[in-house]
């Protein structure tokens, strides 16, 4: 009998620890599929963040470094400079990348480090129990914004893709989601583009995935994906903000 669906070769046989409905598992799988299809699974080195995906290394079969909070792009810089023939990527959430690690992501992008960054933006700190993130929407209630995020008090949600797209060095900056089958297919294509650019030594590639957190949003996975489409996508519009090699049209 023909096997039509299997675990990507570069992933391990470890069950995900993520909450039911969480997008992390979906994005992990897409990463594994892309690396397999590009035949670089044995040349990949991942950098795990601090946050829900701190144990990302458990699910992949290749080498990994587990970095301090926000520092993954700096750690990845050190690894890639020593091992330029490897595919080095970070996988970071919004607290990690857009708050405590803002300097590291901006400067790794600005140096044009030949790494790939996968940025999971679900507008909240997951692992610490649902605190306000830099990407939390105005009016959104969290453990540390119980009356809703107040722009006068805490500013506005930060749009990292738009910000990084203003820099000269990055070759690919795109924002995707995995809330529908159509968007999921686009997300996979974006991830594959990002890794392909690194494989070809082109430069810094960045894929933001607008995601859900059913547990800390207090919603079922189905309702969370509806809320993502209605509330998050107007603030974080999907699309490609920079594609200096024209990979999307090639």
């Amino acid at each position: 009998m023909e096997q039509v669906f299997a675990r990507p070769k570069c992933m391990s046989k470890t069950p995900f620890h993520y909450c039911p409905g969480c997008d992390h598992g979906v994005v992990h799988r897409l990463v594994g599929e892309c690396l397999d299809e590009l035949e670089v699974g044995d040349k990949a080195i991942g950098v795990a963040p601090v946050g829900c995906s701190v144990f990302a290394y458990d699910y992949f079969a290749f080498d990994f470094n587990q970095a301090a909070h926000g520092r993954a792009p700096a750690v990845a810089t050190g690894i890639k400079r020593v091992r330029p023939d490897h595919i080095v990527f970070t996988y970071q959430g919004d607290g990690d990348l857009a708050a405590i690690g803002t300097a590291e992501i901006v400067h790794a992008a600005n140096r044009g480090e030949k790494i790939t960054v996968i940025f999971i933006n679900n507008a909240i700190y997951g692992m610490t129990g649902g605190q306000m993130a830099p990407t939390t929407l105005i009016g959104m209630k969290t453990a540390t914004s119980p009356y809703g995020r107040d722009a006068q008090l805490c500013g506005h949600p930060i749009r990292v893709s738009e910000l990084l797209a203003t820099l000269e060095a990055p070759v690919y900056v795109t924002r995707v989601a995995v809330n529908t089958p159509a968007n999921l297919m686009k997300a996979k294509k974006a991830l594959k583009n990002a890794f392909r650019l690194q494989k070809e030594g082109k430069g810094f590639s960045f894929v933001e995935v607008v995601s859900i957190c059913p547990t800390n949003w207090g919603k079922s996975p189905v309702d969370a994906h509806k809320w993502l489409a209605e509330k998050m996508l107007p603030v974080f519009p999907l699309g490609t903000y920079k594609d200096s090699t024209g990979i999307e049209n090639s």
Partner: protein
Amino acid sequence: MADKVLMKGNEAIGEAAVLAGCRYYFGYPITPQSELPAYLARRLPEVEGVFLQAESEIAAINMVYGAASAGARVMTSSSSPGVSLKQEGISYIAGAEMPCVIVNVVRGGPGLGNISPAQSDYWQATRGGGHGDYRTLVLAPNSVQEMADMTRHAFELADRFRNPVLVLSDGILGQMMEPVLLPEPATYDINQKPWALGTTAPRKGGRNLCSTIFLDVELLEEHNWHLYQKYQVITDEFAKGSLKHMAVETHEVEDAEIVLVGYGIISRILKTVVEKCRKRGIKAGLVRPKCLWPFPSQVLADLAAKTKQFLVVEMSCGQMVEDVKLAVDGKKPVYFFGRTGGTVPSDFEILNEVDKLVRPD
């Protein structure tokens, strides 16, 4: 035999690192260590190495963490306020048992302080300024020659024990020029460590992982005791094993009635003080810890049985003096003299202190 070259202390560290096989340097500008990154920015490209000026000390130490985990010999350097920023990364590097060399050309603190020489980072260096149960080896050169030699050794020690090694210097040693005989070059290959990420060396298990997280309390306890046992091995090696020669220097201590204790640049002033004391009939001696962690406690404990008193001299309000007191364990009085804030005590000042102690009337 090779000729000696005249070099600044900071430059000697840079060249010694290159000779040790270090091909990766990540740092951030700060005085008074600036000659070191400037030297390596020019030198590393000549040997196909990477010099990268990071956006912050925090980023620099995390680049070191990444490069070390990928199997490289790697270094960062800074001065006091910058080393404070690196402490988070040092804790991770120590926890993950990644080898690297960190240079602190110490300046006056706390806070921004000033750019003059000081020894007020002793506690931070020897106690571990970061969080958690960990230790870093701390080497304390007292000449430009030792800046080179100890940096060269630091890379070997880091690899041997899979541990960060600090070279604790100061603004004088960094800035002054002396003739140096450069150490022999090492051959180093990024694929010689079987545990490194991306290595081509034969591995023990399947894939390699560099991590510091142990959610299970029993596993973290096991890891911490594993680290502790490693630190005991290092302590033994310096106290009585293969590294004994790197632990401490003693001078005129056999018949000493007063033993002066100081490290780094202070030890050179103390040597002058001992000579002047001897000329004046005062039986003074000197203990100069070359390694601050592990601390040469046994040498001081043994001397406590022979001498009458100790005088610890530091460019701080008194930090190493606590380790001397722990070693002497109350058997003899331990006195302290210090200058701080970037001032350097003169031999005359110290001689006065010795006079007060040996001739109390």
